[in-house]
């Protein structure tokens, strides 16, 4: 019998705000432990929370980008539980009246477009971070109260790959919209996964397990692969799946039991009397809608149309907003956008991935790339030389023409000099010259290489080719 998985995601996304959700403490990553705290986020009795308007706007923005309905009425509830990461003994969340309802996201996976439905998006506060060592846990409250939006999908994913591709597309949109940085290393995006399997021939959903502790996309992928296989193995062996919460162990590559259904949490939600409800007029929602940024799909189409670059290029460039911004700035300053696109797609992306840096943190400016393209087009420097210039720009920034001068990379196009070098190369390599004349065209490439060496790489290869061909055809 063949089994099909049904997978749903709960994605917690840190919103891009300067201050926390209910207090003015900073949200900066990497601060000294317990230095971005106040009576509200430390959970002191009597301290009163006040909603950060920007967190509401960003959540609504995400909802609008994901085709959700923005609730005209929404409120906060207390989710009660007892754990040292939440000293007031409840987390402020939204239970039955979330900010955004429904929606969906269309994304590319396995060569086709899939749409996964969203159930809701709600706003909640993050909890403190606890680190366990020996018989004690250390607690840092810097993260306590940081605004998170939780996106809950319907169980629409049929494979780990689909869930993975969805997360990539979701991150792209949220970064484009300025909703979140979605920096996984800084824990900006964390996932819980609901996973069940059912026989292909049957409708409805099987018993599901919940997987916790997933903070990388690869982790989500691996955990689903493993958990679906585990469930299918149990069913094929005649066993039953129990509803339970499991933890993904990255090192061991397995899911392990955290708690069974009997211990399922009973959070006793009730409306938080410290917080007033939120009402959003349709006028307000429409104003936000009109401020929506351009989304990846639209950008892809516009880049191709506006700069006349191939659809493939547009897709690669638009995948990352910062890369697309860089390309667009450089292409506007250049009359050869395709060459700009080639530089960004090849040398730029390669160097970024090799150095692990982000395009916002490197010194090369879009104007410098446009200038470099102009130097190449004007034959002031050949491609190998231009690559050298680009690498220096990438490291230190600067003016391409200046770097060409300083490094002595100016292309040798002087006919007399090239003729002399070609003559010399032919004299020194009589056999290759004879081979070429006898019809071995590959020999020409060798001779071009010899001339390039004599010019220390600065000759114009196309010019050298012409000169050699002319000389050898006589």
């Amino acid at each position: 019998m063949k089994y099909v998985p049904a997978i749903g995601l709960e994605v917690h996304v840190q919103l891009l705000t300067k201050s926390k959700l209910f207090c003015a403490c900073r949200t900066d990553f990497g601060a000294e432990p317990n230095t971005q705290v106040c009576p509200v986020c430390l959970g002191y009795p009597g301290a009163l929370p006040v909603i950060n308007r920007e967190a509401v706007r960003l959540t609504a923005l995400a909802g609008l980008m994901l085709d959700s309905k923005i609730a005209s009425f929404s409120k906060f509830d207390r989710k009660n539980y007892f754990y040292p990461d939440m000293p007031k003994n409840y987390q402020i969340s939204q239970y039955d009246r979330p900010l955004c309802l429904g929606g969906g996201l269309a994304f590319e996976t396995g060569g086709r477009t899939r749409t996964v439905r969203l159930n809701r998006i709600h706003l909640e506060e993050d909890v403190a971070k606890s680190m366990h060592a020996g018989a004690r846990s250390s607690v840092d409250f810097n993260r306590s109260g940081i605004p998170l939006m939780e996106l809950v999908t319907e169980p629409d994913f049929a494979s780990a790959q689909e869930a993975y591709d969805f997360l990539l597309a979701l991150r792209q949109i949220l970064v484009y919209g300025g909703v979140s940085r979605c920096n996984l290393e800084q824990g900006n995006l964390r996932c819980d996964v609901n996973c069940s399997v059912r026989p292909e021939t049957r409708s409805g959903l099987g018993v599901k397990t919940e997987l916790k502790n997933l903070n990388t996309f690869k982790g989500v992928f691996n955990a689903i692969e493993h958990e679906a296989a585990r469930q299918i193995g149990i069913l094929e062996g005649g066993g039953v799946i129990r509803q339970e919460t499991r933890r993904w162990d990255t090192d061991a590559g397995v899911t392990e039991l955290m708690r069974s259904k009997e211990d399922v949490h009973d959070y006793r939600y009730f409306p938080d009397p410290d917080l007033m409800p939120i009402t959003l007029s349709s006028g307000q929602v429409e104003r936000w809608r009109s401020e929506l940024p351009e989304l990846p799909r639209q950008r892809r189409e516009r880049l191709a149309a506006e700069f006349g670059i191939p659809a493939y290029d547009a897709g690669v460039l638009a995948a990352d907003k910062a890369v697309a911004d860089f390309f667009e700035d450089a292409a506007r300053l250049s009359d050869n956008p395709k060459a700009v696109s080639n530089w960004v797609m090849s040398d730029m992306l390669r160097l970024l991935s090799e150095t692990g840096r982000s395009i916002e943190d490197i010194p090369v400016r879009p104007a410098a790339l446009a200038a470099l393209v102009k130097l190449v087009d004007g034959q002031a420097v050949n491609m190998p030389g231009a690559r050298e210039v680009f690498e220096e720009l990438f490291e230190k920034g600067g003016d391409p023409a200046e770097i060409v001068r300083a490094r002595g990379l100016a292309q040798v196009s002087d006919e007399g000099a090239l003729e002399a070098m070609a003559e010399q190369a032919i004299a020194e390599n009589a056999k290759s010259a004879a081979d070429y004349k006898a019809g071995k065209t590959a020999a020409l490439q060798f001779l071009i290489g010899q001339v390039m060496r004599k010019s220390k790489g600065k000759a114009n290869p196309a010019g050298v080719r012409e000169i050699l061909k002319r000389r050898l055809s006589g």
Partner: protein
Amino acid sequence: MNEEKRGDCSRIDVEYVARLARLDLEPREAELFQRQLTQIVEYIRALQGVDVEGVEPMAHAVAVENVFRGDVPRDGLDRDAVLANAPEQDGEHFRVPLIVG
């Protein structure tokens, strides 16, 4: 499954509530709280006699909405002061008995 979770509000399952609150009750305490909480539920039960047909549930007792603050950050408290009253700390963190789960 306890009675309370089945929706019978006439009796509170003190043992279950204590477990949720991570409280270890002596049998004597459980008995005392059982009596007291049952009385409290009885008081509240009077509300069930009120006719609420057609009345919208309220989210808040005060008719105020949209109380917001701007996204303006402020420096946190001094850490020494924050940790001063902790039963146990290491100069940077609060220290608590190990709990995982």
